């Protein structure tokens, strides 16, 4: 069987896309480890290690091949680790990563066939399994860097449930690179951020009795996993729609749901759950925007 045309190719490969996303998470991960110390590093290492191990085991046993090369397991592990607090007991990142790879991805047939972002699925599984363990609580100060309280407190894997300036900036930087290289579709984070900011600003003040247009925008944008969810999870090509209109609708849905879920309880995890919910609407959005051209 001879090789089919075309004989040239352009643009990233699947592995290139996954590894680029992982590389764009690296600055934020490094910062988190420096600011929060060995506990954060252990969470990251366990999440990545478990993700790779489970992927390898399932690949070899079910599909008779090593699927680590596509890079998706590495990315999933990193995302799981980064989305968890640094004080989490180590079985939590292990379970989250294993659930992500084995149940959310592999049980549907592996890369490309899952309907929910694996890292999101794993993260939410442990959120609802051990809510108390992961509840917001003060962060133990054990970082390698001697940072002013405000900065350290705001690190990604910190306990306060907020992301903080530095981590948000580092994630935004990584995300911007992905958007510039067109590895991630800009429509999704743009609509996500716009819808989230708009709803927070307009209605965010209501629960506290502040009236319309009095929401605390900076706090909301720096909260929990917003940047992580908008730039790295909602943009997962497998679980987001194709086409500009569908992507804008998907992103906007994530934004509005993030706000609603934030108001009704889940502070750090709201954006994760919002993206997971919107993942369910992807087939519908795709169908609505299906090809309507004629000859």
């Amino acid at each position: 069987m001879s090789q089919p045309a075309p004989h040239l190719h352009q643009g990233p490969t699947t592995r290139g896309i996954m590894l680029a996303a992982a590389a764009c998470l690296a600055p934020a991960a490094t910062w988190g480890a420096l600011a929060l110390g060995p506990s954060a590093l252990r969470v990251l290492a366990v999440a990545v290690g478990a993700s790779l191990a489970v992927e390898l085991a399932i690949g070899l046993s079910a599909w008779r091949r090593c699927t680590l090369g596509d890079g998706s397991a590495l990315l999933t592990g990193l995302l799981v680790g980064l989305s968890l607090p640094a004080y989490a007991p180590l079985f939590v990142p292990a379970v989250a990563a294993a659930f992500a790879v084995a149940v959310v991805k592999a049980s549907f047939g592996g890369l490309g066939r899952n309907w929910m972002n694996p890292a999101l699925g794993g993260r939410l599984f442990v959120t609802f399994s051990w809510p108390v363990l992961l509840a917001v609580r003060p962060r133990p100060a054990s970082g390698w860097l001697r940072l002013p309280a405000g900065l350290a407190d705001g690190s990604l894997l910190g306990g306060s449930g907020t992301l903080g300036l530095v981590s948000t900036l580092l994630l935004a930087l990584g995300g911007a690179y992905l958007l510039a290289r067109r590895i991630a579709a800009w429509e999704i984070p743009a609509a996500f951020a716009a819808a989230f900011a708009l709803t927070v600003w307009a209605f965010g003040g209501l629960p506290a009795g502040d009236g319309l247009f009095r929401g605390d925008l900076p706090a909301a944008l720096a909260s929990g996993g917003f940047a992580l969810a908008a730039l790295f999870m909602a943009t997962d090509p497998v679980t987001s729609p194709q086409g500009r209109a569908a992507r804008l609708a998907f992103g906007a849905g994530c934004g509005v749901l993030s706000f609603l879920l934030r108001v009704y309880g889940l502070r750090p995890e709201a954006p994760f759950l919002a993206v997971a919910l919107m993942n369910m609407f992807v087939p519908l959005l795709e169908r609505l925007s299906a090809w309507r051209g004629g000859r």
Partner: protein
Amino acid sequence: MSQARSFPSGGVCPPERKSATASLPIRKACVPAEALLPLRQHAGQAARCLVRIGESVEEGMPIGRAAGPLSADVHASIPGVVRQLREIRLADGTASPAVLIALEGEFIRTGRARRPLDWKSLSRGELLQRVEAGGVVDLNGVPAAARLRGAGPARLLVVNGVESEPYLTGDQRLLVEKAAEVLSGAAIAAFILGAGTVQVGVEANKPEALRAAAEAAAGFGFEVIALEARYPQGEERLLVQSLAGQRVGGRLEESDFVVLDVGTLQAIHEAVTLELPQIERVVTVAGAAIRHPANLKARLGTPVSALLEECGLEDPARVIAGGPMRGFALSSLDTPLTKGMNGILALSRREILPAVRTACIGCGRCAEACPWGLRPAELYKWLEHGETAAARSRGLEACTECGCCAFVCPARIPLLQGLSAGKREGAA
């Protein structure tokens, strides 16, 4: 010429890689000791064989007679003796009967100057008959005569000098060196078609060809138009869209547009004014595994291996007949040069960049690259599950098999192969 015109959406910009041959004049290739001439070098049925084993043939003598629509005559490309009649595999993998001629005797045409005939003394029917007798076939495998017979008078004849496939420079060189002959062919074609307007489309990245075409076109009253360098600009329907600003609904053959490439037009010119049948063609031999890339005017039936040897072959990862976007990887280098083969490329591993195939990750790059706004990955999935009807209802028939989708696919899914197979299945 203000801004270069183009089609409205999709398309890709592959690396050009034309510099190795773009400035090299077309030169004559060595005459092969044996020519293997397939009787099917066109879209239709194989031509009916006119010769027997042991029979002597002269250069340019018909050895195959057109059998049915979209079939064309085949001529002996060298003088000699018929040694074998056998079934061979063509570049695209399909089978065809073929005639093997061993070189012997005298060249009766080559090297003898002939006075070109003034075609204006001939009637439409006589002109058409000469094109038919020349066995001229275009790059898509459609006999030129079939194009020119057409359904009714054409409004616009488009001279396709686009050549947007990487590496290939034969058409560009033809325009630079023989623009007058190409446009004379276009004038003949326009006369037969009754076409009021003739437009010459050349990509803006070929200024030398544009200039040569513009100089020659002045004498004919043709318009030369610079087009954006974007693959697949040379695709007929897109070219009509780029030039006429109008999308062709239905079959192009039934529209009032006719597109002919420059090589075919030059062959029409020779068939009419010199009564010279199509027994040669210009082929670009290039790629990193070729020591001396060249544009060769070679006899049809010359084995690919002989042409590669002439240009110096070293350790190719893949040899391709045609361009790198749509061409066929050759399983045998004994495959002969045919009427539609505009390139022979010997590519190294570094040029091909092989990558591992993965599952579709749904990134949508194929849909963005598709000039027809299709969703190739979705069509591929339907076809993979045997749902040809579902794929057709989602526009499969609009696919012109340009390969942009597979070119950008991160998962390296053979989308072009899958969609062409699906189209053939749907047509059957």
